[in-house]
């Protein structure tokens, strides 16, 4: 398949209902951080974008949301695919991104260049969708914070060590800060900025 046909193929087959069902998983996932969700749809996204990440893009992005892509994604058919299916402008400036998609192994060295919102408008911050090697296996982490009764445990494979420090720094900025959705293939889990993380 050429990259052009790749960019035009896929998408939701029933946009109204499929975007609603993915959104409800995202909403429940944000409300209960760390809950492992599975997207049971094939949206035909080009490599190296994962299936869950593709569905999330289709659900949340449109011409009102600018999207930043990590190097591996922006050099693939992903940019055109997102542009074609959602109408979202793909931008290079991290600070202006509503959403940022990051391929596996490319976790940014800092969240500081993304939009962190302001003290008056902390909602105006980037949501990062970061692909990892696997969810549900790998090192265990304990989650606490709003949405979690006592504690929640997650297993994530493929997050760089630096992530724990980035996340702690992000947490310290509250109410400013980014929100993160970790994806692995068809699976995802949400880490809103309120969640505290600790390695077990």
């Amino acid at each position, binding site marked *: 398949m050429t990259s052009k046909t790749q960019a035009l193929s896929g998408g939701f087959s029933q*946009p*109204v*209902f499929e*975007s*609603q*069902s993915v*959104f*409800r998983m*995202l*909403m*429940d996932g*944000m*409300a*209960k951080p760390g809950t492992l969700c599975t997207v049971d749809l094939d949206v035909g996204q080009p490599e190296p974008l994962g299936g869950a990440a593709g569905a999330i893009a289709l*659900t*949340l*992005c*449109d011409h*009102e*949301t600018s999207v930043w892509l990590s190097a591996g994604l922006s050099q693939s058919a992903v940019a055109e695919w997102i542009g074609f299916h959602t109408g979202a402008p793909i931008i290079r400036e991290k600070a202006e991104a*509503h959403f940022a998609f990051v391929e596996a192994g490319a976790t940014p060295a800092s969240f500081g260049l993304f939009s962190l919102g*302001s*003290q*008056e*408008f*902390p*909602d105006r*911050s980037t*949501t990062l969708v970061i692909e990892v090697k696997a969810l549900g296996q790998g090192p265990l982490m304990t989650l606490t914070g*709003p*949405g*979690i*009764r006592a504690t929640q445990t997650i297993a994530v494979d493929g997050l760089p060590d630096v992530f724990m420090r980035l996340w702690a720094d992000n947490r310290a900025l*509250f*109410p400013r800060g980014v*929100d993160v959705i970790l994806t692995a293939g068809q699976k995802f889990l949400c880490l*809103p*900025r*309120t969640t505290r993380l600790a390695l077990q």
Partner: protein
Amino acid sequence: MTDLATYNFAYLDEQTKRMIRRAILKAIAIPGYQVPFASREMPMPYGWGTGGVQVTAAILGPDDVLKVIDQGADDTTNAVSIRAFFQKVANVAVTTHTRDATIIQTRHRIPEEKLTEGQVLVYQVPIPEPLRFLEPRETETRKMHALEEYGLMHVKLYEDIARNGHIATTYAYPVKVAGRYVMDPSPTPKFDNPKMHMSEALQLFGAGREKRIYAVPPHTEVVSLDFEDYPFEIQKFEQPCALCGAHDVYLDEVVLDDKGGRMFVCSDTDHCEDRRDHGHAGAMLAPKKEAAE
């Protein structure tokens, strides 16, 4: 003449739903913070639940079961009207039973029955800004939230005590969410405030005219503001519900005649009916039962 439109599932167009959905996700990520959103003009008046209706329309799916209450009752006219709206535009299943509902849209009450994991409570909010009556300017109240400067609110509550001997706020009683934002719980009686604390359900708040959405995730601290020497207290009723005999519920006063006759009955009609179905009877029902025997 122009062709009149046919409407999308749940009335709102998909672009509007996406915009509201993005606001909801940010609202959940910043508990108690009011996210500005581009509220649409709805086919019902501002102040009558347009915010709640937009939130419900944005989250609703074909498998949901919807309950709509106003003043705790399923059969108040505005609740009936909103429920009928969603039946018409989304063909969604509706119920009056709290425990069967996946989404409950409410005005002025939280159901008596404890909400459970997976349920969503959508509040209709008239004035989302808890500081609005102390400071009418949005530009000022936004700064106060940014700086976590809530002294004014405490001063107001304390002035109540000085003047009346009580905190004179009986509904829309301000709360602090997850230790950061002071939030208006919408005009529910303060009786309902404790139900918000560590609720298992997700609580979403929609203010259409004021264009704000905010949220309290499940298992989140919601603390009513108070003072050490004047701790927060909820309303207590001297008698149980006259129909189902329930204590510890919020009651409506029903005037029976012009000679001061009155009775008190559950404001939550579903809760009351459910209790009666399970054999509970209050003072006004008991004699009838005897007569039948």
